[in-house]
C-alpha cells in the first residue's frame, strides 16, 4: 500500500492542489447562484482574464506590484460585468439572465482572442511559488503544497465574513428571500455587487495558483476549470460554501487519479486524460439524477 502511494504520489498531490484551485472558483459560482439563482457562465472566463492580466502586468511591473493589481483589476471586472450585463435584467425571466451570462462569456473569450492574437501567453514564473520541492521522492512545485492551505485559510475567512459581519448577514438574508430582504431595508444591489467582487477575488487567487502550474494562458483555458468548478458546486449542493469546497477537492483528486490511470489501475492507454474531463460530467449527471440537491443543498419546493 505504502509502495503504491509512493509511486503515484505526484498524482495525489496534484489532485489536492487542483482541487483547492477548483474550490476557490466554485465558491464564486455557488455564492452567485445562492443569491441570484444564476449560473454565471462567465465566471470561468473571469478566471482566464485574471491570468491574462497577470501576464501583461508582470511584463513591465515587479511582482510585488502586479499581484495586488491583478486582484484589484479582476474584482473590478467582476463588478463591471454584474453592473452592465446582469443588473439591467434583474426583473427579466431567468432564462434571459442566463443567456446574458453566456453572451458575456462569449465576449470575454473573443476579447481575449483579439488581444492575445490567439497565441498561448507564457505565464510568468512567480518567485517562491514556482520553485520545485521534493516530497517523499516526488518532485513538485511549492504552489502544490501551498494551495490547500491557502484555500482552507480563505474559506475560513469567508465563513467568518458571512457568519459574523453585517454584510454577511445581508447576504444570507438575500439568498433566503430576495423580496422580503428588500422590504427589510437591505440594499440588494450592493449585496449582489459585493458577492460578485468576492467571487472574482477568489477566482483571481485561483488563477495565480492554477496558471503557475500550467505555465500558459489561452482564451479558452478558463472554460474547462470553470465548468468543473461548477460541477463541484452542484455536487456540494449549490448555494453552500463548505459543500462547494468538499466537492471541488473530490473532483480534483478523482480527476487526477483517472489521469494517472495507466499507472494506478495498470491499464495502459493514452485516452486517460480525455476521460478525466468526461468523468467530471458523467459524475455531474449521476449526482443530478441520484441527489439533485447535492451534499448540503436545501430541497426546493415547486409552488404552483
Amino acid at each position, binding site marked *: 500500500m505504502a509502495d503504491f502511494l509512493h509511486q503515484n504520489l505526484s498524482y495525489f498531490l496534484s489532485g489536492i492542489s487542483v482541487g483547492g484551485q477548483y474550490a476557490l472558483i466554485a465558491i464564486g459560482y455557488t455564492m452567485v447562484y445562492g443569491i441570484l439563482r444564476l*449560473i454565471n457562465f462567465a465566471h470561468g472566463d473571469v478566471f482566464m482574464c485574471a491570468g491574462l492580466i497577470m501576464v501583461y502586468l508582470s511584463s513591465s511591473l515587479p511582482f510585488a506590484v502586479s499581484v495586488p493589481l491583478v486582484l484589484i483589476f479582476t474584482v473590478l471586472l467582476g463588478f463591471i460585468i454584474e453592473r452592465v450585463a446582469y443588473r439591467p*435584467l434583474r426583473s427579466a425571466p431567468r432564462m*434571459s439572465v442566463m443567456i446574458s451570462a453566456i453572451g458575456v462569456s*462569449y*465576449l470575454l473569450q473573443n476579447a481575449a482572442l483579439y488581444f492575445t492574437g490567439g497565441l498561448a501567453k507564457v505565464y510568468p514564473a512567480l518567485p517562491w511559488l514556482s520553485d520545485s520541492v521534493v516530497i517523499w521522492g516526488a518532485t513538485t512545485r511549492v504552489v502544490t503544497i501551498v494551495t490547500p492551505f491557502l484555500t482552507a485559510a480563505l474559506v475560513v475567512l469567508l465563513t467568518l465574513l458571512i457568519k459574523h459581519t453585517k454584510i454577511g448577514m445581508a447576504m444570507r438574508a438575500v439568498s433566503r428571500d430576495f423580496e422580503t430582504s428588500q422590504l427589510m431595508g437591505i440594499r440588494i444591489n450592493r449585496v449582489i455587487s459585493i458577492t460578485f467582487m468576492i467571487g472574482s477575488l477568489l477566482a483571481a487567487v485561483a488563477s495565480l495558483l492554477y496558471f503557475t502550474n500550467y505555465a500558459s494562458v489561452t482564451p479558452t483555458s478558463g472554460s474547462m476549470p470553470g465548468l468543473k468548478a461548477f460541477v463541484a458546486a452542484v455536487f456540494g449542493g449549490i448555494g453552500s460554501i463548505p459543500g462547494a469546497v468538499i466537492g471541488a477537492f473530490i473532483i480534483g483528486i478523482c480527476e487526477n487519479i483517472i489521469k494517472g490511470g495507466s499507472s494506478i489501475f495498470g491499464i495502459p492507454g*493514452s485516452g486517460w486524460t480525455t476521460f478525466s474531463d468526461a468523468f467530471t460530467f458523467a459524475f*455531474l449527471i449521476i449526482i443530478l439524477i441520484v441527489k*439533485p440537491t447535492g451534499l448540503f443543498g436545501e430541497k426546493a419546493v415547486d409552488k404552483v
Partner: protein
Amino acid sequence: MDRAKRNHLIRIFIAIAVVYLAILVLEFTLRPTNILFTVLRKGAIYSLVAVSMNLLNGFTGLFSLGQAGFMLLGAYTYAIFTMPVSVKESERVYKYYECIVGFDTGAFIGLIAAGLVAAFFAFLIGLPVLRLKSDYLAIATLGFAEILRAIFQWDVLGPLTNGANLLREYKDLTRITLPFTDIPFPPTLFVFIVVGICILLIVLLINSSYGRAFKAIRDDETAAEAMGINLFRHKELSFVISSFFAGVSGALLAAFQYTVQAQQFKSMMTYEILLIVVIGGIGSISGSCIASFLYIALSEWWLRGLDMGRFLGIDAPDLFRSGFRRLVFSVIIMIIVLFFSKGIMGDKELSFERMKGFVKGIGRKKGVSK
C-alpha cells in the same frame, strides 16, 4: 379550406419557388467560388440547427445546450457512412487504424443515418436528463456534449472514428450527384432542398397537436400536466426530434466543410447557435432563419474587413487585426441581449401582412418627417 387560407398558401408556395429558382439561376451564372455561395450554404445549415434548437428552447421551454454534441454525431455518421470503401481501406484517411466499417452509402442515406444516430443518442441521454429542470438541464446537456466530444477522440474507438485525426474524402457537396447518374447536383440547391424539407417538417410538427402540447409545457408545466399532457413523453419527443435535425445539419456541415474533426464541436458552437436563436427571437422559426443568414453573412462576408485591416475605407491595420470581427460581433450580441431581448421577430412569424405593414409604417414615418 376557405379561400383566404388557400390564397395564403399559394402565395407562400410561390415565394418559396422563387427563392429556389433564384438559387438555381445563381448557381449557373456565378462562379462557384463566389463568397455568396458560402454564405447561402452555411447560412442554410445554421438555420436548420437554429430552428431545431428553437423547437427545444423556444417552443418546449427546455433550455438545452447539447446541440454541438448532436451535430458532432451527425457529422461523424455522415462522414463514416459516405466515405468510399476504397478510401477506408487505403492509408489516406485511416492512417493509424484499420477501419472496421466495410460499406459505403450515398449522401441521402448518409443524411438520414446521421439524423437517426443523433436521435438515438438523444433518446438515451434524454431518459435521465429530461427529469431535470431549467439550469440543471442546461448544464447536464452541455456536459453530455462534452462527453461525446471526448469519446469521439478516444483512441480505442480509432477504427471507427479515426481517433483525434480528421475525416475527409467522403461525399462532400461537390461529390453529390443526381440519383442514378454522374451529373453533379448543384451544391447550394442541394443544401437548400434538404434544409427546406427539414424546416417544413418542424413547422408542421409545431402546428400539430403535439406542437400545441409543447407550447403548453413551455407556458406552464404544472398546468399542462393537469390538463393530461404526459410531460416526460412530450419532452422526450421534442428532444429526440430536435436532435434528429441537429444531426442532419451536422451532416450537412460536414459535407460543406470537406473535413470533420471532433475538436471543432465545442460548447462555443452551441453558444453561437443559442445566440443566433436569441437574435432571431425565441419562439420564431422565420426569426431563426433570418438571424442565421444575417449572422453568417456578417461574420463571413460583410465584417471581413475588420480582420483584414481595412473596413469601410478606413485603414487601421493595428486596430483591425485578426479577431476584431468577433469582438465587434460579441459586443453587438450583448447589446441585442440587453436592450432588444425580443430579437428580430419576437415570437411572431414573418408573413406578407406584417411585411406590408412594415413597408407602410416606413412610408408613414417619411410622410411625417416631411
